[in-house]
């Protein structure tokens, strides 16, 4: 049994009377791709925000590599090794691609403002290495040649990849991807799927993602968690989720599961 990167116990987050996340348990094993799915408003992004430190859950505990993180400020959580991307891309628009990556490397750099003024040897080597790493990373995500373009002028697909590269720059153990294939055509989606797999296999990064595209989710995930109205209604491998009645009902409405059974029988009958 591999160890758990994230272990969330009884996490609850309320907004006024609304239970956005209601008593959810979640375990993300190391070196896997886990997905969170669910209809709109199910609490997926809220759960993400709890893990990445934007929200502090009212109840429950979130452990990262065995240590509690739910009371830490956001930047400390990033330092520990969790980084994320956003549903609607949020890059530093006025900064170039390289600068975005360099900001991403922030937690891995040590020099302070005084060293920057005097340019001591430590500062110079660190700066040089960080720029080298930034170019490597941009090359890795396929942004070669666009290094000095301001982020806001990049095409959509490139912005998505730059956002992932910025998240990777902090050398995370866990990467949270919020709808990484949103707005992409089938070919771009396939490339993204291959890219995410590569992150797990060659970079040994654990990935937790939110995704609406079922083809992607079923293809890529080692484990799927389904949320509905803040509650966890199912968890398991893709095949298990596909045939889970509660999941089908959450997506298609009550009674849909029975209809689906009927449809399958009919299909078997005609075959």
């Amino acid at each position, binding site marked *: 049994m591999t160890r758990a990167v994230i272990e969330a116990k009884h996490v609850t987050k309320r907004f006024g009377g609304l239970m956005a996340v209601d008593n959810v348990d979640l375990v993300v094993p190391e070196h896997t791709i886990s997905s969170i799915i669910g209809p709109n408003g199910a609490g997926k992004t809220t759960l993400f925000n709890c893990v990445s430190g934007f929200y502090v859950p009212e109840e429950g505990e979130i452990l990262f590599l065995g240590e509690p993180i739910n009371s830490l400020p956001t930047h400390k959580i990033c330092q520990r090794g969790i980084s994320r991307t956003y549903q609607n891309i949020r890059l530093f628009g006025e900064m*170039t691609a390289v600068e975005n990556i360099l*900001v*991403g490397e*922030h*937690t891995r750099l040590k020099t302070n*403002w005084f060293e920057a003024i005097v*340019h001591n040897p430590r500062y110079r080597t660190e700066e*040089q290495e960080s720029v080298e790493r930034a170019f490597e990373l941009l090359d890795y995500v396929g942004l070669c040649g666009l290094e000095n373009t301001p982020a806001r002028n990049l095409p959509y697909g490139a912005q998505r990849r730059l956002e992932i590269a910025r998240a990777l720059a902090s050398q995370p153990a866990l990467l949270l991807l919020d709808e990484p294939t949103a707005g992409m055509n089938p070919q771009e989606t396939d490339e993204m799927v291959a890219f995410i797999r590569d992150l797990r296999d060659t970079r040994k990064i654990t990935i937790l993602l939110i995704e609406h595209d079922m083809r992607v989710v079923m293809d890529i995930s080692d484990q799927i968690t389904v949320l509905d109205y803040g509650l966890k209604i199912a968890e398991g491998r893709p095949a298990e989720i596909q045939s889970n009645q509660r999941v089908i009902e959450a997506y298609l409405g009550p009674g849909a599961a029975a209809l689906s059974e009927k449809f399958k029988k009919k299909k078997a009958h005609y075959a």
Partner: protein
Amino acid sequence: MKTSLKKGLSSGVIFGIVFIFLLLIGFINVGSTMIGDLLGNTASGRLPVNNLLTFLAVLGVLTGITARNGLGESQWWQALLGGLVAGLVSGVLAWLAIWLTGTLSLQGSEIQTYLPNMDPADLNYLRFYSTPLAAANTYLLYFVGFSVAGAALVWLLSIKGWFVKCWQACRNGVSNWKGTKDLSDVFKNRWVMLVIFLAVAVALYFLPLAWGSYWNYIMGTVAIYVILGLGLNIIVGYSGQLVLGFGAFFATGAYTFALLTAPTPHGIGLNLWLAVGGSVLVSTLTGLLLGLPILNLRGDYLAIVTLGFGEIIRILIKSDLLTAVTNGPKGVTNVGQPTWFGETFNDVNYMHLLMLLVLVALFIAKRLKDSRTGRAWVAIREDQTVAQATGINTYRSKILALMLGAAFAGLAGALFASRNQFTGPEDFTLMVSINVLCIVIVGGMGSLPGIVLGAFVLKGLPELLRELEDYRLLVFGALLVVMMIVRPEGLWPAPRVKFDKPAEEPMQDLAPEVKQ
């Protein structure tokens, strides 16, 4: 045909109205006198008519140029027609204005009661000392003639393109020399840069000797505002916090220096250079103290709170409560002055010191900007939430920006108090904070050359325009409005830092190069 008429009409109306406006505020006389000064055509007693005619010619040519430029790509007859129409329209408006004011003043109406600038003597000059009708006809003639000439001039320039060709030839000439690809490559040459650097250094050394104490005073003020602008630029331009009470840090710097060195009220008489250090330190601490409670505020709220802070500091300095400490509204006199081999600083020495410190401040600001710290600030400006999730301690970063910005202001304050030998609470009104903010915005947010240029434009230009006396602020305001329309990003927007791709072998120099 139709567009020519339309464009001619619109630019004619604009310049006609401009003419009438200038006439009513009495600017035409002032403008003509200025032209006379420029051309060396001054006379006592009766003002020479030539100056007025030249002024009209300039206005007419501008009318024509505007009419032609509105047309874009056009035939010669279209351009001339546009110029003619524009000249006719503006000329007729001028004709009406001159004829009306001339006739009224000849009939003895008291126009001046309602329009204080309509002095009968001035009006006589505007009529060329002749009858209203003849004068009005001359105005019409001038407007038509010079408007057509202006339109023709622009048309010639655009069609022949000789100006463009000359420029290209120049570029090619430079490019062929030493086999450089582009004009900008010349500036990458180390020797060229060294020569430029030396030339600038020599110029900076000799200029204060040459231009006299009045200009040393003006340029000294500009230099102090450059330092202030660089400080506020760290806070507003980089880390994106709209702080309106920047004058407070300036005031603490100036007062710390003054109280540490002046004989009254405390008579501490500290060493000058230590006192400068003390000013910087106290301002920095003020930045910290201000920063701690307010840093969770953003945008408008931050602006209002810091605005209040600036006023609180000024009022505290003035208050009865602290009179024993700060000398109250009287201010502190006989502030210490630096000495150089036993002699107190004169204006030239001050200017040299200020220029040196401006260079140091520029150097520090540039290095901060290109560092990890500077990138963190810009990231916070762009998106604070994401910056935090990227691992930046936004709280600490923003306080650091406030403290460093305040340190710059403390230095500027010490210099200000020492140079004036006096500091009082009224030196630090809200206008100081607003002026510095204007420098940052007009110059270009986050742009170092922009700050320098902005300080020259906002603190130097009003002095250059002193010639215009009453119209100084009017012209200045108009310039600002035009600038914000033409260049909304500032006079000199921040250049983008360009990183070169690292080579396979280890590189010696990886300092980011600034490219336009």
